[in-house]
């Protein structure tokens, strides 16, 4: 499982990093973000790409589990 650490990055970098990671066509990804906007944006993008997303809060951060 590939992990993308997008914490603290400005818009739209978390989505770009996720998009770049998807190129490797793995079954599962984990994306770390630290604000609600990035959580929404990455989730929306992943769902549009046909992935399923579950979100877990981890302290100040959000961990997005993205699966095909």
């Amino acid at each position, binding site marked *: 499982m590939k992990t993308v650490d997008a*914490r*603290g*990055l*400005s*818009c*739209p*970098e978390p*989505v*770009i*990093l996720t*998009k*770049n990671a998807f*190129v*490797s066509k793995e079954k599962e990804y984990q994306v770390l973000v*630290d*604000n*609600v*906007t990035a959580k*929404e944006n990455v989730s*929306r*993008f992943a*769902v*549009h790409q046909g992935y399923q997303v579950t979100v877990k809060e981890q302290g*100040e951060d959000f961990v997005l589990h993205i699966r095909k």
Partner: protein
Amino acid sequence: MKQEKTFIAAAGIIIGVISAALVFFGNPVNMGFCIACFLRDTSGALGLHSAAAVQYIRPEIIGLVLGACIAALAGKEFKARGGSAPVTRFTLGVFVMIGCLMFLGCPFRMILRIAGGDGNALFGLFGFALGILIGVFFLKRGYTLKRSYKMPWAEGAIFPAVQIAFLILLAAAPAFIHFTEPEGGPGAKHAAILISLAAGLIVGVLAQKTRLCMVGGIRDLVLFREYKLIIGFAAIILSALAANVILGTVTGTAYFNPGFAGQPIAHTDGLWNALGMMLAGFGCVLLGGCPLRQLVLSGEGNTDSAVTVFGLMAGAAFAHNFGLASSGEGPTANGKIAVVIGLVVVAVIAVLNSRKQEA
């Protein structure tokens, strides 16, 4: 997802109506909102520049920041953050403002000018889109100002607190705060304080909830085929346009005046309208959001955005102190030089902060 799009469309409609109404209540024409103009007016009121025609502490700005702050606190989204290249962001803020004052408006006023029939703003829109495309080019090549970090809560609270201080200064109006004399220029044209403040608060809450961003619409469409933000952008144009037509019919004064010459607080130099907004669009993509979005983020405790707003205010002061800002007569020679320098500086910042990412 669909709900999100309906919400931002509804918010855009409300914001368009409020923008048109603010002109009815006394704001300059096609300037219900203009983040660049209003920060410039506030800079002037504080004496950072001495252009007597544009000095007023704009309550809309105060309302936007505080509205976003309240919405963020209520939604448990207020987080003090900072440390992502603040000096670079300040510099970008300065040049974004110089680009906006070449055009005479921020991206928000650009769409309100379009909704008021100002054809010159279409040249601005063209340049703006081009600037965004250049910014996207660098984003795709790994442009980043690196991450921000958690900051003490108080650090994030300073910027909203400054807005409360501005509100007190506006209400108390001590002699050291400069206000444009009645009939003395755009700074003298404003809605009543409480109306402006309420308008700012409402739009601040809506913009925080919807993540509305003028630069994000075109950017996300190009990068991800994502329509959400451009729906908000389009909804504001259509709703302000409709509100202008209705206000014109009801009051007998035209709020929608299609044409190029003689448009309010605008000039007809198409090339420099386009280049000014190209600089603004390019700079805003590198900043991660338009001036409105920077205000909203600073209300959420984002101190990088607060530094950007200080950059915008400093840029406004430079623009008027050095004769860079355009007027109804057109751009100035100094302004043209500053926009070219700005395009070079922003391009250098983009290159230096881009690196090809490994896939």
